[in-house]
């Protein structure tokens, strides 16, 4: 029966090519814009480290002195050096890392000095975030403790400075000081760079990684937000009242997460007892997806675009409803004859829906082409996420499902009207 309906639908669609083309165009335009914006949304709100995102936690706490404490205000995202070092030293999580963004000038053997982005962090960073290493390895906790002059560099910097060879053991010249290279990164495609969103959320990883104790010894420049209270001469001193360090903990089971939270609450209570503050303090432990959500990693413009596209699809569908109605009712005579020959109302209804579905699928195909065009446009936008937007298989399937569903929805009312046609009246007026 379905085959017969399909045949009828194709015949009917061929009969009025302009109207058919208009309907397909409507659905294609709506689907194309919708899928473009939804793909951007899908990519931006994706999981940067699947399989591990639920086990990595950003530690935030409020241990401000009383004068700075404003109840109800957001818990700060960064920690003071004193707190970060204490948590790192206690090492109660499976893995933990403190870190800050920075930059340094590297002297190349040939050509101008290079300004490179850097991350100052601790040993667990590499296993924690599944950082792939092409040559060598990350540094050890002992290197952290010894303030070892070591560095891990990106594959790109390795290419620039050493022509891509295994540079482990070579010296990275930072100003007038040297760092021994212990590792070279492989391809590390992780976006957004969730571990620190303060300096651009999308893009390549940092080019140099240095133990944070070493970076402090060398007085390397940090970047990102540094928030101090009181008059401070050195914002990176151990006891400086400044928030500038990110702290991440890996907790492999929910029980460990509960235990770690309790440990942090005890830590805050101890600080309070030590007289740093008298308010109760605040703690927030967010896993990767919660953290990205709290940071609003999907730009509000993108959300607005999705709503706009959905509205556009809605208007296109309204249009399709009108055109389908026109198309079906113009065939009142034919429907009347079929009814008179014994077709049930249900049969007429189904046949009309099949016709709407065929239009929807065709709209989906053209919509996909338009979405492809949209992708090209998005990738040429001056946003830092532009290069990462691509359509995956799931979105491809979603395109056809959305096209089919929306065309069937658009077909409901016209099909219902068509099945109400009274055979006698329709035949007579013909």
């Amino acid at each position, binding site marked *: 029966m379905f085959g017969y309906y399909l045949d009828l639908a194709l015949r009917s669609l061929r009969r009025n090519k302009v109207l058919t083309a208009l309907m397909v*165009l409507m659905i294609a335009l709506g689907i194309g814009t919708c899928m473009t914006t939804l793909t951007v949304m899908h990519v931006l709100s994706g999981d940067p480290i699947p399989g591990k995102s639920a086990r990595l936690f950003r530690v935030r706490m409020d241990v401000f002195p009383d004068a700075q404490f404003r109840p109800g205000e957001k818990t700060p995202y960064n920690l003071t050096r004193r707190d970060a070092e204490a948590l790192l030293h206690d090492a109660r999580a499976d893995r933990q890392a403190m870190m800050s963004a920075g930059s340094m000038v590297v002297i190349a053997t040939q050509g101008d000095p290079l300004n490179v982005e850097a991350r100052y962090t601790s040993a667990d960073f590499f296993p924690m975030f599944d950082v792939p290493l092409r040559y060598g390895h990350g540094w050890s906790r002992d290197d952290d403790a010894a303030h070892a002059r070591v560095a891990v560099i990106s594959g790109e910097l390795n290419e620039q400075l050493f022509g891509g060879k295994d540079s482990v053991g070579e010296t990275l010249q930072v100003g007038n000081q040297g760092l021994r290279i212990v590792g070279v990164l492989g391809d590390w495609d992780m976006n957004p760079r969730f571990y620190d969103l303060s300096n651009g959320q999308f893009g390549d990883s940092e080019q140099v990684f240095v133990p944070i104790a070493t970076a402090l010894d060398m007085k390397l420049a940090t970047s990102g937000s540094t928030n101090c209270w009181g008059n401070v*001469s050195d914002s990176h001193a151990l006891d400086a009242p400044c928030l500038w360090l990110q702290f991440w903990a890996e907790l492999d089971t929910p029980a460990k997460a509960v235990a770690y939270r309790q440990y942090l609450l005890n830590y805050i209570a101890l600080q309070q007892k030590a007289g740093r503050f008298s308010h109760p303090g605040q703690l927030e432990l967010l896993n990767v997806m919660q953290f990205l959500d709290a940071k609003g990693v999907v730009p*509000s413009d993108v959300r*607005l675009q999705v709503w*706009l596209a959905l509205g556009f699809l809605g208007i296109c569908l309204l249009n399709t409803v009108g*055109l389908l*109605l026109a198309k079906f009712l113009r065939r009142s005579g034919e429907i009347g004859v079929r009814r008179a020959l014994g077709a049930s109302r249900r049969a007429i209804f189904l046949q009309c829906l099949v016709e709407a579905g065929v239009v929807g699928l065709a709209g989906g195909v053209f919509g996909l082409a338009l979405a492809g065009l949209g992708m090209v446009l998005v990738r040429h936008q001056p*946003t830092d996420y532009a290069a990462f937007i691509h359509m995956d298989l799931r979105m491809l399937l979603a395109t056809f499902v959305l096209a089919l569903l929306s065309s069937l929805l658009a077909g409901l009312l016209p099909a219902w009207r068509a099945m109400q046609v009274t055979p006698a009246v329709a035949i007579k007026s013909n």
Partner: protein
Amino acid sequence: MHFRHILSALRRHRIAASLLVLEIAFTCAVVCNALFIIGHRLERMQRPTGVDEAHLVEVGVRSVAPGSAEALMAQTRTDLAALRAVPGVANAAIVNQTLFGHSISFSGVSLSDDSKAPSIPVTQYMGNAPLAATLGLKLSAGRWFKPDEFVSQSQLDGGAGGIPVIISRALAEHFFPGQSAVGKTLHAFGANHVVGVVQRLVQPRDYGAAGHYDYAMMFPVNESYPHGTYLLRVKDSAQRQAVIQGALHALKVDGPLRLISPKDVTTLQAARARYYRNDRAMAWLLAGVRLLLLLVTTVGIVGLTSFWVAQRRRQIGIRRAIGATRSDILRYFQVENFLLATAGIVLGMVLAYGINLVLMAHYELPRLPVIYLPVGALALWIIGQLAVLGPALRAAAVPPVVATRSV
């Protein structure tokens, strides 16, 4: 006109008519809001900074090896002298943060030194003596800094409080509404006396509440180069590229090994364009969607009206046969479309207002100004009339003889 005939005819085509009305209403609502957002973005992109943007070039220099504060200060003086000597340069200064730059420096400012006193974060420009003239700031009250008021960064870190401050007029009005701010005291770095008020100075980037964009203050601090950016004022804005080349050359010739890269040099106009690129992209996108939307709606109206005309061929023939002229028929369809469009527009305005309320709650947009409503309405009346013209002309061409035939 025969409004009543038209209305009673429409009543027989309730579904098609309400579809048309709904379509026009939704289009009207979306178009009004899209126009409004475009206008809002354009307005944002044109916010003045209070500085003479067309004549400014920024030059960033990074140090390779840390040096003593004295050595850096001496090098900075040498650099500034060399930059001033570049042909086409009218003035050179150094500042801790640049407009549309990546970093923003701010302090909590309040009216008393009590730490519980309400404070707001205010951005601070720290620069040397020629900064105000280089930026082309305009004083609206008080005076500029005196030469003996400038301190070094290390003196400031060492706790040199009590340095004077110059604030923007908006900030002056915030703290001292209706009074003169000159002579008053603000608490940022200790107690700072307000010695001058500039007409306008803004944050380097949007930070904090939207209404605080033009809250800014300046301190007399002699910055040194790795912590600051050189600002050049050119005599003729057409010379900016030549000045950039000259400045790069002048800095490379003298001084220690440093990172002097064309990547760290930009005109302020280029920095502005870069800062607002997302807003520009969004405005274009909205404009594109708005055009598509109007196109889709036009096509929809053409489709439905054509169907209508085809359905009513016989009635039209009968009307023609009993004396209606072609222009009567034409006008009939035009008026019908006008009535439907008007109904759609009325509904659309209510919807537009509703959408705006949602946007206000989620996207920090202000209330939709009433002016956008007639603009949207006009657009839809026009496209309605354009869309109906083709089918209506076809209807007018129906010969009276159709009445006597059975199709």
